[in-house]
């Protein structure tokens, strides 16, 4: 059964399904529910140079078919991640994608340099788009030149391939993607959350202590699909797609749009078993749709002749 195997820069994945960064901690909690080795990979929580407590609470708010979060990149800092979290994760047969964040370019470079040396870190994911960090974060993700420069600097120091995570909060996502590709990124991950807000009807105060937060979950899926559809036709580096995935059908939809692998975020909170369930369901779905290998689905919505093979119902 290697019809789910996917090869991406730095990543030899037994299947293309992985939990998204920030939605799976460093794996410890979900290890109580199932064997993490079934996962294609794990995108760990954003790591910064120093430990961060993050934002005040409330940090999450529910929205129609989605949620807002403003965690504020809480994490134990590079040192602890290197010494405690990554070695713990090494007991599982699963490649780790380290999500790297910071307030300055130097921060990113420093974290990337060190974390890319960890034996089970097979790739980096540059989180240039977290809308919850006031300093820097958002600008990196919305100005092509800045994103490109950061990509270059990190590429210079990283010992593993570098994926850059795109923010959807931009007018022209293709322009961003191309600038980052040209700067040498090995792949893209998309999308991060959309900037949103909710206000408490009784107090007239924003529900999140941080006021605004990042919108994730099924609500944003059509935006993710559209952006991956556009970007995948404009770049030649692979895309790990995310944004509202809840089912094996959703995974196929992301592949059709142009993704080569996918990450599942918010859905882990709704159902802790969602990743292994999706992985288990994919082969039967491929049968039903008539595909020998999941990679055949990538970009099918726009590749010539993409719609002629399957003739169902």
């Amino acid at each position, binding site marked *: 059964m290697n019809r789910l195997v996917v090869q991406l820069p730095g990543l030899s994945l037994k299947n293309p399904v992985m939990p998204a960064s920030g939605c799976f901690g460093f794996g410890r909690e979900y290890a109580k529910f199932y064997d993490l080795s079934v996962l294609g990979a794990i995108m760990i929580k954003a790591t910064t140079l120093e430990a961060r407590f993050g934002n005040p609470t409330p940090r*999450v708010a529910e929205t129609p078919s989605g949620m807002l979060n403003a965690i504020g990149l809480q994490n134990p800092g590079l040192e602890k991640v290197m010494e405690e979290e990554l070695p713990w994760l090494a007991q599982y047969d699963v490649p780790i994608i380290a999500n790297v964040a910071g307030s300055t370019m130097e921060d990113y470079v420093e974290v990337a340099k060190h974390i890319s040396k960890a034996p089970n870190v097979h790739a980096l994911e540059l989180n240039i788009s977290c809308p919850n960090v006031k300093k820097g974060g958002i600008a990196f993700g919305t100005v092509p030149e800045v994103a490109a420069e950061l990509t270059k600097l990190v590429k210079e120091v990283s010992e593993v391939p570098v994926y850059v995570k795109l923010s959807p909060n931009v007018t022209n996502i293709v322009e961003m993607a191309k600038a980052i590709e040209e700067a040498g990124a090995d792949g893209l991950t998309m999308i991060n959350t959309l900037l949103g807000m909710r206000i408490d009807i009784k107090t007239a105060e924003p529900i999140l202590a941080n006021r605004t937060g990042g919108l994730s979950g099924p609500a944003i899926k059509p935006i993710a699909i559209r952006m991956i559809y556009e970007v995948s036709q404009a770049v030649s580096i692979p895309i790990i797609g995310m944004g509202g995935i809840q089912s094996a059908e959703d995974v196929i939809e992301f592949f059709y749009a142009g993704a080569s692998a996918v990450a599942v975020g918010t859905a882990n909170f709704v159902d*802790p078993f969602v990743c292994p369930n999706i992985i288990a369901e994919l082969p039967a779905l491929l049968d039903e749709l008539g595909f020998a290998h999941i990679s055949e689905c990538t970009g099918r919505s726009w590749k010539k002749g993409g719609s002629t093979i399957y003739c169902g119902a």
Partner: protein
Amino acid sequence: MKEQMTIVRHEQLAKQIYELTLSGSLVQTMNEPGQFVHVKVAEYAPLLRRPLSLCDINKEAGECTMIYRAEGAGTTLLAKKRPGETIDVLGPLGNGFPVEAAKAGQRALLVGGGIGVPPLYELAKQFVNSGVSVTTVLGFQTKEVVFYEQKFLTYGETYVATVDGSYGTKGFVTDVINERALSFDVLYACGPKPMLKALEQQFPQKEVYLSLEERMGCGVGACFACVCHVPNSETAYKKVCSDGPVFKAGEVVL
């Protein structure tokens, strides 16, 4: 840890207050009062689960009971579900009240505010079974939302306060404790944060356990939504969902 449990009873106890009894094999894994279940109310929306405390665990019957206030979108929808329907339950989650902290022969004071009352019921039951005496003080906004007074009375002295004085003592739970000069060895409380703070301040020398509430994402410790500070540190934290929801007074910053 996750099951489609079946509704066996679902009754309204007071204004907006519902008692929900579920059956399923998950009940056999439920032990600690103060633990909670994370409930998915509908297939699609609302998206997130709702944390509800265990109020009564009946392993023989294979049933557990939760009590909740129907207020927002999820709980209002939940209130419409009828016996025979199933609900997706994840749990039990979190760390509950340390029952063993009160020894046989000692007296436990149980203090509940509003929708914080339910987990104290299973706690009272376990205390009575292990020979600990129980005094319960329940605080509510108004008479219309009072529930379970009779049920607690079967386990020991029980006092009720209402903020508007429409039932029991007028005022807060702390007024009852002070007026009656209630004595105890260990205190266990669940309710709104101001109540917990007041209790923590009033009994600095006592063994006090407090159950906290916080907005949750995952409910299992993975998303960092529900953290609270630990005294004297800028970065140290506890997660309400997986380190709590019950903490010893002083362990976390309220």
